[in-house]
């Protein structure tokens, strides 16, 4: 059993935070295998640094920060897709033709299409419930940029969802 400086149990930290870390990676990278690999690596990094972790809350903070940064670096390395500005998010018509009516799933798909920085900020805000200041500190980003990304992303998501709703209503008539 690995214990940190404060007598922290690594296995407990792993059990308590694995879903958080995996979810962030999965929703950011949109690749299950890649997300699992990155999530594992982040826990291994934590294992190496366990002596510097002061509490379970500190471990959670550390893991969030590590996976966020690793995800952004990984996306940059992979160049998953060409850089898409918020004004050019592709039309979702193909998704609605796939007939997935569940709101949550549609929202997740829309979040997946956001540009990298915007996607990470939205995930940290609405998946991890961090406030803009915490997100700014975590991502080393100016708070005005965080707020700007949140504001614009919500407008994009709302707009795209509304368009999908209009299209669905027309198709279902």
């Amino acid at each position, binding site marked *: 059993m690995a214990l940190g400086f404060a007598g922290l149990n690594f296995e407990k930290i792993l059990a308590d935070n694995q879903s958080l870390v995996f979810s962030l990676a999965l929703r950011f990278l949109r690749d299950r295998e890649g997300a699992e690999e990155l999530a594992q690596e982040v826990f291994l990094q934590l294992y190496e640094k366990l002596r510097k972790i002061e509490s379970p809350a500190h471990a959670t903070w550390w893991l969030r920060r590590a996976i966020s940064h690793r995800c952004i670096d990984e996306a940059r390395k992979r160049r998953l897709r060409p850089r898409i*500005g*918020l*004004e050019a*998010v592709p039309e979702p018509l193909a998704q609605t033709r796939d007939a997935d009516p569940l709101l949550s799933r549609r929202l997740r798909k829309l979040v997946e299409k956001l540009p990298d920085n915007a996607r990470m900020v939205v995930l940290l805000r609405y998946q991890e419930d961090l406030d803009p200041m915490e997100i700014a500190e975590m991502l080393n980003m100016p708070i*005005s940029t965080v*707020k700007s990304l949140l*504001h*614009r992303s919500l*407008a*994009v*998501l709302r*707009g*795209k969802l*509304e368009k999908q709703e209009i299209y669905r209503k027309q198709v279902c008539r």
Partner: protein
Amino acid sequence: MKKAFLFLAIALAAFAQQTFDFKTLDKLGAKAKESTNITLEGDTLKLAVNFLEADNASLKPVVDNLKGVYVRSYEFDKEGQYADADLEPLRAYINTLQWTKIVDVKEDKETSEIYVKPLPNNRLGGLAIIDAEPKEVNVIYITGDLSTSDLAKLGGNFGIPDMKFLHDDKKAGKKSTPAR
């Protein structure tokens, strides 16, 4: 004597254009739970415009001649957290500039105003929006040389649905002021 008076009036008007301190609006947000404060002018605005145009050339006509962009947007937990009187200095300043108030809507406890500085050929030298609601207040103040059709062209950008009303209403020669 008349010439001297005219010269003084012009000088005062020119001076007035430079004297509003948007920091005075910051007290509006003293109790805000969420706030957005943007002040872009001078070199900083030029930097922003250059970068924006590099990403999206279609925005060039909208942003190329901007001189100042000021936004104060505050959201509150409950009503009564800001004083409408704190907006009066801005309203008074806009009045000294003799901008035209083209929208003045009062609905329940909400006040919505749009002021413009009209220029020839469907252009605007400035746009000010003051939207005061019980739990939210938004102030936007933009100066420069912009056209109403360029503002409408923002539609489709930023993921926000297309909007033509400002352009269409001006084209039809209508003022967007509702009957009271």
